[in-house]
């Protein structure tokens, strides 16, 4: 079957790969916004720090909220355990210690991209080269996800990879929405938000890589409410919270001893099915997303109790 320790590392491996990809997208799209928005709209780089919940670390280690500082903290800062380079390192470490359960390419791809980013880390300081590097990172992460899909069996190892990816994805989607809404509501004067709102929301969609799918599915102009609709409730959109929750439910159903995990996933699904009335940028939305994030974190904890560190009952001859 699958060792508890290996299941945990695979789960984290997938989370880190997903995190690396999301962080790279987020940074890249944020840079793109610069070209789209007029100079009068001052781009706030600190938003990136907030999305990733790194405020405390940033305030302790950096003196100014400049593009350079925010980007470095998010991407190249090895001391920040949530930075892209640290996440890459952790992904590599998790593959290194579970290599026996994965296709060999998994190790080779991650090792290669880690070494590449490490060797070219200074590129992250220069806007033009940074985007090219991030593009390569995103592409490699996609290649890894695709390769795993294409070469693994639908076995326990694969299911824990999926579980990690879904949890990280749901979490990231909720964070981006949260700050996106906050951004729309509070950072600029209402006229500007109205004027450039569609650009902002389009970039949010792009930062999670689903702009095209949104365009296909939603024919109206892009606005905050329709983006929330798409990212939280759409049940065919792979990155929507609802889709992630449903998939996690399916997975937990076929994994062993999953009663407790299923219970918490169900709570998340119920929350999604009974949303309060809310507008993009409202405190109701913020509070709602907050509760969603707490539920996601509860699922994570339930996975630990159920599979990674289960209390093993006294071993006796009756086992098996």
């Amino acid at each position, binding site marked *: *079957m*699958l*060792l*508890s*320790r*290996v*299941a945990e590392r695979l789960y984290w491996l997938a989370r880190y790969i997903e995190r690396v990809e999301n962080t790279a997208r987020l940074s890249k799209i944020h840079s793109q916004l610069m070209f789209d928005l007029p100079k009068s709209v001052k781009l706030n780089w600190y938003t990136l720090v907030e999305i990733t919940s790194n405020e405390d670390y940033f305030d302790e280690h950096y003196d100014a909220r400049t593009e350079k500082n925010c980007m470095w903290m998010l991407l190249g800062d090895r001391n920040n355990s949530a930075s892209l380079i640290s996440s890459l390192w952790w992904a590599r470490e998790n593959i*290194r*210690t579970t*290599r*026996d*359960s994965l296709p*060999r390419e998994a*190790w*080779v791809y991650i*090792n*290669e991209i880690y*070494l590449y980013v490490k060797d070219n880390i200074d590129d992250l300081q220069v806007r033009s080269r940074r985007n090219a590097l991030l593009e390569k990172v995103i592409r490699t992460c996609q290649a890894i996800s695709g390769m795993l899909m294409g070469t693994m069996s639908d076995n*326990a190892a694969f299911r*824990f990879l999926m579980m990690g990816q879904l949890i990280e994805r749901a979490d990231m989607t909720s964070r981006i929405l949260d700050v996106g809404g906050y951004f729309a509501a509070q950072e600029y004067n209402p006229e500007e938000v109205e004027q450039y709102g569609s650009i902002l929301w389009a970039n949010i969609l792009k930062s999670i890589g689903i702009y095209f799918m949104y365009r296909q599915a939603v024919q109206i102009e892009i606005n905050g409410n329709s983006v929330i609709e798409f990212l939280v409730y759409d049940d065919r959109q792979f990155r929507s919270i609802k889709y992630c929750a449903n998939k996690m439910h399916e997975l937990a159903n076929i*994994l*062993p*001893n999953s009663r407790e995990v299923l219970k918490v996933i169900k709570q998340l699904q119920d929350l999604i099915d009974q949303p309060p009335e809310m507008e993009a940028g409202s405190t109701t939305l913020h509070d709602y997303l907050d509760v969603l994030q707490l539920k996601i974190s509860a699922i994570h904890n339930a996975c630990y109790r159920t*599979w990674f560190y*289960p209390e*093993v009952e006294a*071993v*006796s*001859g009756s*086992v*098996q």
Partner: protein
Amino acid sequence: MRTALKEYKVGTGYDEVLGNSGQPTSAASELVNHLNTLSLSDVKELQKNAEATIAQLGISFTVYSDEGNIDRLWPFDLLPRVIDAEEWKQVSEGLKQRLKALNLFIEDIYNDQKILKAGIVPAEIILSSKDYRPECAGMKLMHHSWACICGTDLVRDDSGSFYVLEDNLRVPSGVSYMLENRAVMKSVMPDAFRDISILPMNQYPYELLSMLRSICPTDTPHPEVVVLTPGIFNSAYYEHAFLAHEMGVELVEGSDLVVGDDDCVYMRNIDGLQKVDVIYRRIDDAFIDPEAFNPDSVLGIPGLIRAWKAGNVGIANAPGCGVADDKVLYAYVPEIIRFYLNEEPILPNVPTYLCSREEDRKYVLEHLEELVVKPANESGGYGLLIGPKASQEEIEQFRQLIEDNPRNYVAQPTLCLSTVPTLCDEGVEPRHVDLRPFILQGSKSYVTAGGLTRVALVRGSLVVNSSQGGGSKDTWIVKKEGA
């Protein structure tokens, strides 16, 4: 064109490519033809490709240092070593013979001790060995297979004959690097593999798995096999993961396993506990079971020895097999072969002086400047005295060490190890090599086609260990046309 080998001059001893005569040996002639199509800069380019491939594949080993553990890329030299397939057949037979006798010896030591009673091997050598485990008394194993995996170090002297330098019977390392070297070679020098008939070695992991299944002590039709590693900080962790991956079995750490009241071994899975039938352990005896051996060990599994002795789990290599991995015992191996198999040894030992024997000790102390002195129980090339290269101070220090604890030291004449053309800063130069083939013994015996060639990269040096700056080469067992 300045071809890579044009200015190559052999050193003093036997050269694996040019023999003693300066003309390519018959095994090497096709390699030499191939290399003659390459300029020195071509070869340097290929070497760079090889190093890039190693980095990309993440082939590394861990070195302990004051600054903590460092993952280093595996050192590799492009120019291969070649051995004739007919000659290798003989060597293989010799290796199988040797391991078979050693396994019979180990089983005898833990049971009737016939060889001690016959006075062939002095009892005190065994009883004073730090790897003798009285806990193993009375155990009889499937196929008498205690040391199921053996890495035997071979050298050639200046006449070109192979000698056994030592047998590594505890947890021998290096086989993954042997396989990786071949993979790198095939990727950077594909033409050579088209033109030259080189015996494949990729089947090792399947042979290993089949051997491990064959030592399962119960009659389970599908034995569950695992590889047991001390963890990611071990210098050979790369190899542990590699072998588990290639065999498609679980790589476990001590904390993943638990022994039940039923004296069976289980691993902790996501759905509870699953029975384990065979363990390929890569942890030393002393740490494998805190209940039986070192009580402070956190690496091991309490009760493992209990489960093994109850016949519920097979362990490779079996606990206690290190009793035959002792440089003092090594001197007796030819006698051991004669005693158990009633055959003459096919492969010779290097002449060895035992400091515990008064006559030998006297000779050793008088000839320290000419000899290599080795502690009986160290690995990794540590704690050696290489007489001809040692300072007077070092020689005096060893004189004292030997007088204080003669049982712990053996000495051998300094061999002139054979050389292989190696890419160095100045061009292609001869460098000394040894060879570690791997031998398996379960229901049948198997020897790898070749082995891990280790090369001393420093001019004139005899130290080949990777942890001390040595490198490695691919080893080609070459079948000649029509042979």
